């Protein structure tokens, strides 16, 4: 017993391109999953790293809460960086001033200032 799909040449090409596109997307998915964050000190984060995933460690120096429920941590290891806490799963964390923290996040820029948008947070 054999299965065959009768497609003319143009449809075969279209189907092949569709398959390549899906394989491409799958490849990108696995590549993204395996991206290792760049471990560095806060002071080493620079403009050219915008859009990269980094891992930083430091102490929460200041917590600012807004009326909308968002929080902004200032994390310091000698140098400072702002960590916006917009995701509800991170808002539940019992973070206080002076607590040491490890953050994996995306380097972004807001109004000219570099920030680390967290993807993972570990309180110590």
């Amino acid at each position, binding site marked *: 017993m054999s299965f065959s799909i009768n497609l003319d040449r143009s449809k075969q090409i*279209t189907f092949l391109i569709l398959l*390549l*596109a899906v394989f*491409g*997307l799958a*490849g*990108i998915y696995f590549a*993204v999953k395996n*991206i290792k964050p760049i471990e560095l000190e806060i002071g080493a984060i620079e403009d050219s790293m915008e859009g990269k995933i980094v891992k930083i460690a430091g102490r929460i120096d200041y917590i600012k809460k807004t009326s909308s429920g968002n929080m902004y941590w200032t994390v310091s290891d000698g140098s400072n960086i702002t960590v916006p806490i917009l995701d509800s799963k991170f808002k539940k964390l019992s973070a206080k001033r002076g607590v040491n923290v490890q953050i994996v996040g*995306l380097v972004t820029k807001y109004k000219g200032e570099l920030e680390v948008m967290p993807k993972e947070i570990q309180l110590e």
Partner: protein
Amino acid sequence: MGVGFIPGFSSNNLSMLVITYSMISSEYHLAVTAVAIEISNSFFEFLSPMLFGIGNEATALAVDPAYEGINEESFKRSINIVASGGLVGVLISLPLIFFAEKIYPLVYSSLKPLTGWILICICIYMVWIENGWRKRFFAAMIFCLSGILGLLAKDSGMISSEYLLLPIFIGLYGFSSLLSKKHEKKELIQDITFAEKASAAGKAFIASTFASMISGMKRGQTSAIALQAGGVLKREEVLFILPAISLAFVTLSILVLGTTGKIRSSLAYDVQEVMGDLYFSQTVLFVSVIAVTACISACILVLLARPLGRMMTKIDGKYLKIFGFCVCSFLVINFTGIYGIMLAFTATCLGVLSKQLGVRSTHLMGVLLLPTIVTAVIL
């Protein structure tokens, strides 16, 4: 002006270089210089899709109608249409100066919670206007696959955000056009009538005003929506409407900055960086600078049309294609590396697929629209 010829180099980079290293001490002069650079670039960036078939977020949709305008006369007409479109884009946004102070703060905050849902309705409409269920299915498929590509790439950390869209747009609209045009014979670009210009200007005005009020919408998304919702448009109308939207959007972004403090474009970012929060009188000043720069840029672009057109006819189209392919490949490999190659490959497959399936290339803008929708609905 030169930046327009260099695909992949953003005028924002040049503005920031000027802001950082210039000897200009007055913040007004710096901001005006940044405005002049950005506005003239908004005109000249349309040369890159015409000459090399390479587009960015704002000009990618011009690749198909403009590229292979091979003939000198056709190329000249394309440039004239783009110049007049850009100029009209600035002119149609000027009357909003009188209402901006009252309208923007009110409408901006009211529409913000609805952004995601408004975009969903627009996208459903975009797919719905395709002819027949078969085409609608293909259009939805292309939109979703492109959107998945955008979602995977966005905030992934693969490539620095400055260059993230480069391999995607080169793949979707650059490589795919270079690969698909093999047997295609295009008709020459015709002049555009006054009625067509008026209709396209109206569409550009509605689209850019609407987009300027919705956070998360940028030039690329606005162009895609205007082209889709605008029904079936001639190539000449597309070439007119894209610069009109691009320039109108940039002008309105200064009005939005002045009235709400929100940054909606790279130009608004530059101005805010130099000037801080704007007074309304300063906003009017910058809009005037935009109008003057737009007039000068449009004139220079029109003057350039003839010599560039002559140069085009002297070069064999085949070599121009090979050159375009080499430039695209160099940009992707040099700026984005292995991840960029993966993105460009997948984007090329999607671009070619949309042509094979016979659906409009605007559905590929799902790459920008779907992530915007997801961000707006979830956050």
